[in-house]
């Protein structure tokens, strides 16, 4: 289940951030490793919301800097 979710998460990252799937690892940092600025992240989160049928309020994104952190947030809501 978690594997399937991560694949869907990765698919969104690949299409919205134009990065190779192999770079989308839990340790990857959005800014430094995936070249994603704040507007990129807003668009990426909108795509995740649509993919998983969830809502992620802006304040919950504060402090999130890595793929792993973002995925945990999505996973908790996607149940």
């Amino acid at each position: 289940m978690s594997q399937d979710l991560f694949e869907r998460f990765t698919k969104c990252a690949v299409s919205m951030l134009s990065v190779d799937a192999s770079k989308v690892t839990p340790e990857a940092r959005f800014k430094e490793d995936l070249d994603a600025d704040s507007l990129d992240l807003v668009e990426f989160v909108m795509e995740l919301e649509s993919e998983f049928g969830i809502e992620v309020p802006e304040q919950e994104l504060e402090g999130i800097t890595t793929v792993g952190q973002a995925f945990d947030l999505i996973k908790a809501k996607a149940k």
Partner: protein
Amino acid sequence: MQGAGHRVAVTGYGVVAPCGIGKQNFWKGLLGPGIVGAKTIEIADWDPQPFFANPKEARRADRVEQFALAAASEAFATSGDLPYERSRIGSIFGTGIGGLRTLEEQVITRVEKGERRVSPFLVPMMMANACGAAISMRYVLQGPAETICTACAAATHAIGYAARLVAWGRCDAVVTGGAESAATITAVAGFANMTALSSSGCSKPFDVARDGFVFGEGAAVFVLERYDLALARGATILAEVLGAASNADAHHITAPSPGGVGAMACMQQALDDAGLTVRDIKQINAHGTSTPLNDRAESEAVATLFGTPTPPVTSIKGVTGHPLGAAGALEAAAVLLSFEHELIPPTANTAKLGEDIACDIVYGAPRKWSPGPTISNNFGFGGHNGSLILTPVN
């Protein structure tokens, strides 16, 4: 505020248009058939990817900005690198509207899915200055970067102002031109309901049966440089900008002033700026939109100012349609190509001139000529007039 009086060279240009991508394809298109049976003419199968680092970057540029960057890429490939201080290279661009496609898409998204789904890139994609800003960023041009939005006169005004910045000595080079891609469903409906679009779907400037324009799109970008500096760096000089003018009818929001007096004054100012007389002009690239009012007023202005027979007059809008703010850019490119090929492209689709047209319109077939000073006109809703004079170099 006195200018330095520098001569202005054109050292590079690039074109993206429905009839051809790249300047030589564009030229072939200008000699080909005109548009029939269409209210709009758009670039088929446009692929922005070759002009961007990755799909993300391409997606974040509205189609109009994609065109501008594609044309800029060809322009810089022609001019070569500009070895000037970056603060002395400007980016002066023209567009009538800007990223209207993005705005229309996002309005639909907002209505269908709500405010939270509106793209964070809406604003930077729709803003009218996005094209010029993108060129300035990509090529690190840190001089003046300004966008002129005078409807269908925008690119002609931009090229004129860009040349002025070089002539004045403020810039060593300026990248300029215009782009448009605004034929959204809403915009087409707006133009159709004001009866500006051709009801027969055929652009035939100056024809007796002309009935409006066909909505086009495209971009052309030019590299202008101080003539002496371009020579010193060994650049190939393609043409010289001899003069430019800008004025206003102050008459009506859409209709030209009766008798084309505003257009006539604008052309006279451009001649004065260039230090030329009417006898020096060897070709007129007309605004020639194919609307009854524009073509009559422009023809009257040309015939009154130049006397009859007039210099040869052509309009490329039978082929390109009317790309609003990009019109003057595509037309300046057509003038440069007419220098190179020693041919004046014909006014496509035009078969029988209107009785109100007293000019020597080139139609039916291209005309051989000895290239010389050429004036290009554009007029915009709001009463904006622009004229530009280009000349070949020996």
